[in-house]
């Protein structure tokens, strides 16, 4: 069973006369329950790939099966629904809504649920459960600027979990954090993976990547290698 399957996925950006081939044919199978680290140098196409995986964008060509459904040609509205229901996002810069409290931030994805049902007391109970799980039970009324970076990232994780997604996409989740906090965040992600969620994470830190189950290495819009050692021996990427 695969959480995601990419076949010859390409993404080309046209900027005037300039053609940027950000992804040049990525073929990749991600089994359910995987914990994948995408590595590679800056500009190699990691974020582009993660955006496609997260249904924030559509490929120029190729096929993307998400949970057994072809999403490569889905409409914008359908993709919005999939992002809401199946995917949880964690960003490097947290991306919390500053004027909202912790509780409101965590509840935000519920607002865009299919049919937009009212937020029930069950939802709020779940929200508090998730918040206590990431250690935020005492901070529900705080606003993001009153929290440390590590706490803000915990809010983002809680928010990513509120709709109980199958896949969590994280773009350098520890990039803005000190190493102690980074370790704590990684522990939470590992726990989430342990309960069966697929996690796809972009990182360029080997000591973060090494804590995942599997690492791929991107170069010039292609998957250039797999395994933690592929990253260290950049001169000789292991063929895929």
């Amino acid at each position, binding site marked *: 069973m695969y959480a995601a399957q990419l076949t010859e996925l390409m993404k080309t950006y046209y900027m005037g006369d300039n053609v940027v081939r950000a992804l040049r044919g990525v073929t990749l199978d991600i089994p359910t329950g995987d914990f994948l680290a995408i590595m590679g140098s800056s500009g190699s196409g990691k974020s582009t790939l993660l955006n496609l995986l997260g249904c924030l964008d559509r490929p120029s060509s190729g096929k993307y099966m998400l949970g057994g459904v072809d999403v490569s040609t889905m409409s914008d509205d359908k993709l919005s*629904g999939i992002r809401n229901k199946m995917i949880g996002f964690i960003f490097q810069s947290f991306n919390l809504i500053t004027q909202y409290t912790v509780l409101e931030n965590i509840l935000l994805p519920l607002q865009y649920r299919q049919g937009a049902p009212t937020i029930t007391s069950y939802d709020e109970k779940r929200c508090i459960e998730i918040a206590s799980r990431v250690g935020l039970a005492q901070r529900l009324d705080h606003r993001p600027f009153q929290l440390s970076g590590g706490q803000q990232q915990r809010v983002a994780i809680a928010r990513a979990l509120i709709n109980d997604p199958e896949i969590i996409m994280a773009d350098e989740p520890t990039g803005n954090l000190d190493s102690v906090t980074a370790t704590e965040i990684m522990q939470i992600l590992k726990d989430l993976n342990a309960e069966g969620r697929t996690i796809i994470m972009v990182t360029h830190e080997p000591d973060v990547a090494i804590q995942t189950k599997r690492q791929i290495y991107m170069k010039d819009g292609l998957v250039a290698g797999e395994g933690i050692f592929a990253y260290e021996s950049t001169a000789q990427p292991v063929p895929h």
Partner: protein
Amino acid sequence: MNTQFFRTVRLAIKSLLLHKLRSGLTMLGIVFGVFSVIAMLAIGEGASSQAQRQVLELGATNIIVRSVKPPDDGENTASSSNSRVLRYGLLEKDYRLLTAIPTITQTTPMREIVKQARYQHRQLNVRIVGCTPEYLTINHLNMAPGGRFLTGHDLDSLENVCVVGSQAAAVLFPYEDPLGKIVQLENQAYQVIGVTNERTASAAIGGSMSGQDYNKDVYIPLTTMKVRFGILNVQRSAGSFSAEQIELSQVTLQVASKEDVISTAEVVRESVERNHPRSKDYAVVVPLELLKQADQIRYIFNFVLGSIAAISLIVGGIGIMNIMLATVTERTREIGIRRALGAKRSDIINQFLTETIVLSGTGGLVGIFLGLMTPVAFTGLKFAVNQFVLSGSSGTSDISRIFLEMQPQVAIWSLPIAFGISVAIGVIFGVYPARSAARLDPIEALRHE
């Protein structure tokens, strides 16, 4: 659907409250736009209903035929230079002709002259009206208790009796009961037999600017007037002398039903025309026709004033759009986050459109509240005009009197319209910012600093 709607509205209110000052200032444009629409319409309504009331005071079933001094052309001066007396106006034979029209139920001929009335040392220029008993009912006058109006007997026996208008009575008899007292009307003695109640002025007729004020009238029998005052109206001014001969100043005719008024007026015009083939020395005033004109004027008035006020609403709308565009830019990152978390383009459109509508709708409600205060504000305005504009000038002109007597009337129908317009302004000027928010690419938006 409903819960979603309320959630969106709550969300909009919340985000508007984040920038209270900015939201408030943005709203001001709509507030004053709506206020001026309501105020303009209220002033228009007030002015026209004042005009309407005055026309109705003339009597909706009445037809008034009045003597009018003809324009000073060659023909008239020729005749008047011979006799030094200007003869014009309605004749008694006109009156006899008019009484024969079958649809007319009541008639009253009348002749008026302006003279001084005196009681002891108090004096007042009054309009002396020589008339018949029917004058009372046709002109909707009422008698104050105790007195009576002129009777047929008074006319037949040429009694020297008079009925005094309420204001004239108040000036001449401030401390006494006028009944039974003798007033001097140009050195002739008349006994007061009654006082009329106060009556609101009616519309101006027969080319004179001022409305008819009944309260300073003194009524005497028409026959008595003819005998005692003669048939000439003599005016002396600064050494020159002029005399006019007018048999009847006015004939008021009452028609049985409103439906017959217009057709009867045609017959009246034709009848009088027969005796006055060449000179246009009379006027036929049909209050019902005036009423229709007044209605038309009212529509034009409302339309023009409303349009002027609508411009300020549009300016308010542009102000809102400007701020909303700035808000969209400022909140690009937030839009990206919401999109990543599953918001559809339509969710983003709804969010921003709702904010604009809440903003303009709230502005509209505040504007309506201010609009309801129009009469109060207008009273203040009148006070200011009285104090600073009219304080220097002696006596009040007709225009300023009309202004001072006018009372704006907030038209109830203008309130939902004003609110609807303000919401519509929110929709119209909110669509573009909302769409530009929804068009943002989620990835670009997320990257936005």
